[in-house]
């Protein structure tokens, strides 16, 4: 027998009351845990995915939409731009390097993105099977795509028009998987990558079978005589001055739009921040209510327990021991509540990630633990101390003789 066990026994003796208080606290903490995990991983992922991309150039429209579609592959593209124009702007002396992107098709919800090998280099892609594309209609697929669709090297599939859900199939020519990219934790896990040429040819009406056998461009823009379009350009600046001059130049002097990922994303987080703060406040209110619940439960039970406490004193417990006994009960309750809360939080995120494997939260992990979670447990225990302080004090002051003669 020890004090911890004693407090535990009293908690177990009132299972309904105890579990209600634990659940309420756990709920509040679970919300905060999910928010913490998502916020932390979102920011990490957002930053990671945008590394090396100083600017995105695309069709006029919402700059946030341009960044979301071209860097994170979540929103729809703003439209297409002429290849000629893109080549023109890429010759700007402030630009060090550009990577073209062509979008518009998907295969069972996963986006097919036309680009060149520079895009693979940008994300440091390595292959777990096969290798990069060399011919039109060769594709490499991200690890999540491979797992979800059970595709392996050599498989073929037909892309569908549209970004998310299919409108009609491009059944004239099959894509062929030539490589599977190793898990990277970045956006490419969710993508099907191919050459710019593949995206063009799949939308062409006629079929030039000779063209299909020619190797594709692995860097820069493909050579073509025809009027072609691309969706956007990822830009790397040559020097810091570019950050000041280039966006303004492009936005005012051309029919194109330039958007900075870091700027747009911080704007997005600012917008989301209001919602996050709201949910956080709600969670804190729930936690405060659960703290009150614990206080009331302890305080009420104390009325019935005064006799127990007096008896404990007669068999040798000091006032301080009784104080600790009640305090421990509150802390034990909130400690268990916080553990349950963390568990529910992770479980909830896990369910969320498993059920939405293509959207913005794809690639988040539920098995990541943060230092902040330790703080959450400490915070919960402080709540426990606060909630049980007054009942514990009242236990401390119990007058034995008076209590025993009642």
């Amino acid at each position, binding site marked *: 027998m020890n004090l911890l066990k004693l407090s535990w026994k009293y908690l177990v003796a009132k299972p309904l009351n105890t579990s209600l208080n634990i659940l309420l606290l756990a709920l509040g903490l679970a919300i905060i845990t999910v928010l913490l995990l998502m916020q932390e991983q979102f920011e990490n992922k957002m930053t990671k995915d945008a590394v090396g991309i100083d600017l995105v150039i695309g069709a006029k429209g919402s700059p946030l939409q341009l960044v979301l579609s071209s860097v994170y592959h979540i929103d729809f593209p703003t439209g297409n731009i002429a290849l000629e124009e893109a080549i023109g702007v890429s010759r700007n002396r402030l630009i060090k390097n550009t990577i073209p992107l062509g979008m518009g098709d998907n295969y069972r919800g996963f986006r097919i993105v036309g680009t060149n090998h520079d895009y693979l280099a940008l994300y440091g892609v390595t292959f777990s099977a096969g290798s990069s594309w060399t011919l039109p209609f060769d594709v490499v697929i991200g690890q999540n795509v491979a797992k979800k669709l059970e595709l392996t090297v050599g498989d073929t599939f037909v892309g569908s028009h549209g970004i998310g859900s299919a409108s009609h199939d491009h059944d004239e020519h099959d894509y062929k998987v030539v490589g599977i990219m190793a898990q990277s934790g970045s956006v490419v896990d969710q993508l099907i990558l191919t050459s710019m040429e593949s995206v063009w040819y799949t939308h062409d009406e006629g079929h030039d079978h000779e063209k299909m056998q020619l190797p594709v461009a692995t860097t820069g823009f493909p050579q073509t005589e025809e009027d072609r379009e691309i969706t956007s350009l990822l830009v790397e600046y040559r020097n810091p001055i570019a950050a000041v001059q280039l966006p303004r130049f492009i936005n005012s002097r051309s029919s194109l739009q330039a958007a900075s990922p870091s700027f747009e994303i911080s704007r997005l987080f600012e917008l989301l921040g209001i919602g996050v703060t709201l949910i956080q406040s709600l969670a804190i209110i729930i936690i405060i209510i659960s703290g009150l619940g614990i206080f009331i439960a302890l305080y009420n039970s104390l009325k019935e327990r005064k006799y127990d406490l007096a*008896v404990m004193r*007669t068999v040798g417990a*000091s006032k301080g021991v009784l104080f600790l006994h009640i305090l421990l009960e509150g802390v034990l309750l909130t400690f268990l509540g916080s553990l349950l809360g963390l568990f529910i939080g992770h479980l909830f995120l896990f369910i969320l990630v498993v059920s939405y494997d293509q959207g913005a939260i794809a690639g988040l992990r539920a098995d990541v633990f943060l230092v902040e979670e330790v703080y959450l447990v400490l915070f919960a225990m402080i709540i426990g101390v606060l909630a049980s302080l007054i009942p514990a004090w009242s236990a401390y002051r119990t007058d034995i003789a008076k209590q025993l003669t009642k």
Partner: protein
Amino acid sequence: MLKATSIQFTYDKKRLFTLPDMSLSPGDELLILGKSGSGKTTLLHILGGLLAPQAGEVIISGTPLYSLKGNKLDRFRGKNIGIVFQKPHILSALTVFENLQLANFFVGQKRANELEKTLADLGILDKKHAKIDTLSEGEAQRVSIARALSNQPKLILADEPTASLDDENAEKVIQLLKAQAKRLEAVLVVVTHDQRVKNHIANQLTIGALQA
């Protein structure tokens, strides 16, 4: 062993209890008789270190009880004084054995073997792991005696231990108290107005309220 000298106590300013002096040796028994309101429970509380008197001193094994303060008094009481109340007042969140272990824990002892022996002596060893609410009244009172004996006290105080029991159980309880006090060579003080107890303890003291 147990000495009480010139003890005075008052609830309010009007009624003053003056309690008779007493001096008892190990193994002695004392029955204190008195009507309700005669101050016998108060006397028991004073002897048990639960309530400080206005004047006078209680000395147990050479230690003046009320020279001890706070934690020291609690611990001294836990170690040396076992108290049996009119109602069992066993902690219902714990099992029978846990109730006894708790008494050990508060004074920093572990006597699992002795606890079992006590339970066996009192005939409730089979109730060792029983929940409190499954006990009969007689059993519960025996558990409370076992708890009072947990720390092998030098002084056993019993406050109306038979009041809520039927004749058979009352007889058993008083015999058990006497037997255990003998075994531990402890002083046994029983406070009661129960006539059934009278025949069992020869050394008797009757007290009554005195007007100041």
